[in-house]
């Protein structure tokens, strides 16, 4: 059923008894053209674009729990394309253009809100670095503005500007950045993919791959064998675990990243603000809670929960940036498992085994990439060639030295 003002009015007369489920509960069939492992944003987006752009309808999305129960429901919902490197900028800007028309495309309110992403700088050297990044963005057709301290003060007067330790000198602003409602993105893609005939199979965990004549011919799951000519992985956080079932060893470590939300308060923070003297980002949800996070805990983890030293560290950064935060109570903190690749950039490529395709290594930047990741992975799986804007994300780049290291810290995944 299409969501529109007319249908809303029509349903109002029947006491809203006529709404149908947004997607059907599918049982696994014996064969498909394409199987996507992982019912998060990336997997569902891939299935949607496979059906929509490439005309494949025999597509299944396998999810071990319920859709959106992994990192799609654990992120801080920030969307932006303020990157520096030529390998990254076109991809994330493509993603931003897909975000801008996502709701019309999916006929679903994903609450995409372009309220701006402001990266603060605190020294002359950092101003130079941010000016360089802003120039790189503008050269690629991405909007960027370098603000001085007075302009930042007009936008966000509640920041602590004049501390001796981290004085705020200004910020790099991307006005088209902002946030979106993460669960709605998952549900919107699921509903739209379902409408095009995609089977969304929940509570179906992959336990192994079917290998035939040296190629992957499908998967073994807790709900039986499912065969397909092509199998794609979109299981960031668990990419190493699933790839190991196919005998692969990848340039990825799994790390825990924590996020936090406070009680709801009246509108305070206009967009997304990041602290340049550490690693801290904050925005305010539509419900009013301050949503924020910082660095990885720093050790390998699949536990989906972190430890207290990082809680203390993130809260200290928050207090250094916004002293008024000390007056609100923190409601919840949680952890997600990040696919930390060795250069901090993702992998969208064919696996070294025929019939298997990789989408992973999203580090902690996977949410903003959801639409482009789905688009490019669908392109790769349907046509067996990388999409133009995802050419840099080859698995072979680690062996050939063509790494895409945005932060420039080398092969140390807990620093990306």
């Amino acid at each position, binding site marked *: 059923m299409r969501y529109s003002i007319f249908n809303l009015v029509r349903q109002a007369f029947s006491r809203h008894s006529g709404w149908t489920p947004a997607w059907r509960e599918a049982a696994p069939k014996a064969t498909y053209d394409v199987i996507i492992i992982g019912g998060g944003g990336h997997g569902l987006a891939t299935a949607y674009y496979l059906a929509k752009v490439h005309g494949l309808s025999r597509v299944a999305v396998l999810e071990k729990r319920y859709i959106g129960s992994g990192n799609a429901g654990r992120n801080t919902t920030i969307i932006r394309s303020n990157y520096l490197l030529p390998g990254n900028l076109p991809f994330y800007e493509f993603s931003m253009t897909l975000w801008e028309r996502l709701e019309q495309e999916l006929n679903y309110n994903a609450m995409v809100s372009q309220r701006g992403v402001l990266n603060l700088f605190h020294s002359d050297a950092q101003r130079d670095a941010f000016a360089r990044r802003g120039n790189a963005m503008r050269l690629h057709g991405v909007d960027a503005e370098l603000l001085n301290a007075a302009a930042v003060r007009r936008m966000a007067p509640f920041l602590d500007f004049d501390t001796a330790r981290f004085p705020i000198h200004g910020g790099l602003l991307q006005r088209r950045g902002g946030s979106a409602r993460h669960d709605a993105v998952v549900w919107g893609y699921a509903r739209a993919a379902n409408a095009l005939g995609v089977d969304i199979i929940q509570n179906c965990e992959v336990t192994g791959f079917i290998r035939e004549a040296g190629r992957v011919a499908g998967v073994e799951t807790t709900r039986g064998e499912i065969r397909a000519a092509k199998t794609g992985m979109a299981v960031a956080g*668990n990419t*190493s*675990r699933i790839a*190991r079932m196919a005998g692969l*060893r*990848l*340039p*990825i*470590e*799994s790390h825990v990243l924590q996020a936090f939300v406070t009680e709801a308060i009246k509108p305070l923070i206009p967009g997304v603000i990041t602290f340049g003297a550490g690693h801290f980002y904050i925005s305010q949800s539509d419900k009013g809670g301050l949503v924020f996070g910082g660095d990885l805990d*720093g*050790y*390998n*983890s*699949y*536990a989906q929960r972190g*430890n*207290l*030293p990082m809680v*203390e560290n993130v809260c200290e950064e928050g207090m250094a940036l916004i002293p008024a935060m000390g007056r609100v109570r923190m409601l919840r903190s949680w952890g997600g498992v990040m696919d930390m690749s*060795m250069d901090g950039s993702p992998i969208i490529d064919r696996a070294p085994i025929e019939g298997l395709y990789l989408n992973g290594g999203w580090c902690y930047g996977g949410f903003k990439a959801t639409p482009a990741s789905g688009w490019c992975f669908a392109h790769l799986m349907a046509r067996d060639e990388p999409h133009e804007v995802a050419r840099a994300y080859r698995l072979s780049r*680690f*062996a050939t030295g063509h790494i895409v290291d945005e932060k420039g810290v080398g*092969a*140390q*995944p*807990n620093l990306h």
Partner: protein
Amino acid sequence: MRIQCPFCGERESGEFAYFGDADHHQNFNSPDAQTQSFEAVYLRDNPAGPHNELWYHSFGCRSWLRVTRDTRTHEILAVGLAKRNPI
């Protein structure tokens, strides 16, 4: 998460710095040294379960420790000095 340092006793993890997988080896004299080097720098087993890793007690005795820890639960299974099990 607390780590039982052989010198300092049980200390919270914030005192330690993490250096990752303790089990990647490379032999620079081997004929396939280039492949070994690539694998040691980039490829990881990344297990969900017991994981051998290096921790540095930076806010304590400054020793390098070889810790076996379950990555699913953060439970510390064994701690020893890194030099007794050279990497």
